[in-house]
């Protein structure tokens, strides 16, 4: 297996945080950066949504709800 250079919020455990490095999808990057999810900030996974597929995260103390695709696009430091 090739070693992975990135992981995403989907790989985080609850209450685990990691530094965001980049956002892979440019359309999502446009939306997320405008909202303040920036490369270099710490992203913490707070909890999963009741029906799955959505993530409650904290970025720089601000709370966001993200869909799986949105969460997966944020590349985190291993």
């Amino acid at each position, binding site marked *: 297996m090739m070693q992975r250079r990135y992981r995403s919020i989907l790989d985080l455990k609850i209450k685990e945080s990691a530094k965001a490095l980049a956002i892979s999808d440019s359309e999502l*990057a446009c939306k997320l950066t*405008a909202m303040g999810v920036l490369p270099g900030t710490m992203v913490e996974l707070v909890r999963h949504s*009741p*029906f799955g597929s959505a993530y409650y995260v904290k970025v720089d103390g601000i709370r966001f*709800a*993200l869909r799986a695709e949105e969460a997966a696009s944020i590349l985190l430091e291993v």
Partner: protein
Amino acid sequence: MSEKPVKPLKIALIGNPNSGKSTVFNQLTGLRQKTGNFPGVTVDLKEGNIRLSNGEEAVIIDFPGTYSVYPTSSDEKLVAAVLANPADAFFPDVIVYVADVTNLEKHLLLLTQLLDLGMPVILALNMSDTADTMGIKVNVSKISDEFDVPVVLVSGRTGSNINKLTAEIEKLLKNPVTWKKRPIYRLNETEKQVAETVCLNLDVDNNYRALQLAHHHKWLPFLKDNERAVLATIVQTKDFQLLRSQVDETLDRYDRFTPIVQDTIQKPPLFPNTPTDRIDAILTNKWLGPIIFFAVMMLLFQAIFDWSEYPMTWIEDLFSGLNDVILTTFPTNWFTELLTDGVLAGLAGIMVFVPQIAILFLLVTILEEVGYMARVVFMFDKFMRRFGMNGRSVVALIGGSACAVPAIMSSRTIGNWKERLITILVTPFISCSARIPVYLVLIGLAVPKVKVFWFLSAQTLVFGAMYLLGVVAALASGWVMKRWFRKKETSFLAIELPVYRMPYWKNVWLTLWEKVSAFVLGAGKIILIVSIALWALSRFGPGTAIETARVEASIKADSLHLDSVHTKDYISQRELEASWAGQMGKFIEPAIRPLGYDWKIGIALLTSFAAREVFTGTLAVLYNMGSSESEINDRSDNAAKATLRDKLRREKFRDTGGPVYSLATALSLLVFYALAMQCMSTLAVVRRETGSWKWPTIQFFFMSGLAYLCAWVVYVLFS
């Protein structure tokens, strides 16, 4: 974009969602505000007036909350389109940029973009009260120096410094400086070439605005075809990568203003476990979250019915009192009838729903103000997406159980057009309060009064099943439409979950006032017109048909030796039969016969088209009830309903002689009334929200077609 007369001075209120913008707007304008209804625009903008010290009036426009000039929803597109077009009717003379001072590091992106567009801007740092309690120190004059804009530290909640803000607005209106030591963001080589070429070809004088035209050339509504073609060519020949450039620009802007924020704002360290975190640990918990949500919804549902009972009775009493006054003081002629049966009946039909709508909006606005709705969106997004909708749709569907009209208006918060459209189209399937009287009469007729379980009667079960049928129909049609509407548009969840706050009551009351008056004036107009038309249709007939029917009926009544009350009813029934409405009922009888309905039910169906609650009243008149419509509508008068039921039970088909109201017919009618689109006000509001008659037309035929089909299946199965 709009045919509004040009106002001399326009002030735009712009800021991120959750910046407390609307609170500042309410402070600046108070009750002197209205929701504009601008032709061709799906997003409503709120406008208010302020009076300047020289007596001049200026208009304040509240723009939707926006993060950036690179839009991802129709709300944000509107802002970008206005700012890109100085000829736009909404293009402001001055912008008040509202930012949350407790979160300033995330709230300045759009400010720097506005400054680069060369707009005269005042920066209003909002929530100074929260900043004080959090111990945040703000160096206002330094921020003002760094960005070279006037800065006012305000609190929308306490009203602190609002007069200072007004003074700054006035100063800037008199002398609209645009600061020349810009731009904040320096265009890269490609962007510069693109911007300069656009400036040359399209006569634009600001490089950043020129760049905006290139970025948005595909959708900006005001561009002419040749301009769009020129822009497309420029983008292509310069190999301008739109999204890439937008992201790079955004990141560069953050790099420029973040140090300024760090220099001017002193924040105590963040607590890891704030009250919001503790509340969310319960309210958005994987298991407890949905349970609490359903409990909240049950409470809301209960409140809508319980709290509205008394005010609804008062309104009904008020109108029946007015009715009596008019009947006794005015001579009996067609004009008095028009007043009572047309205008008053129509007005009562509107006003009686006001308590339910007000309570629904009160509670939903409180949930919104507190910050709970964003959590509902988070919890139910996945579930609703299976049915082509969005987490936000839950709010609209729940609201639909009171009345579809305000519920459909609440769907505006859904960014993705396809998801919003599906929500608008399926919300009327949810059983609204107007269906309740219809259900009561028909269930009483068809379902025996037996206990199924130790406390549940069969009638209660069927009543509950009718609600379930509505929910299932809404979700199932959403599921179908999701596959039917092929248009692929990026859909986002990405939503900020704001810090929980106590509701700000002034916002709540103003929102309530705005929604209720929008319902009364907007949808109410339609109900009024239709009920007057219905009155005319049932009052007049072709030629002398009504007069002939009256004479014949009185002769017949004489020969049958009916007493005076029955004679009157018999005559009015024959008159109705001869009227245009009666003719129409007979005309459609062949079409509804497969469902088990006769021409009299046909009339009821036709009169129910405008508003389904007319059903019981129409039947009362048609089936020779010997009582006025108001008695039947009075929900406390069960005796009247029982009599109607008895009469209905005895009805026979003219040709076969079989009973009209068999179990099959009653169930078929129930299903029909649960699914059919029988509400002019809903259609009117759908037209308003979607901007054309296309969608209400589709909705009408889709819902009514489905109702016909299901009613037919039910009739065949049970007969």
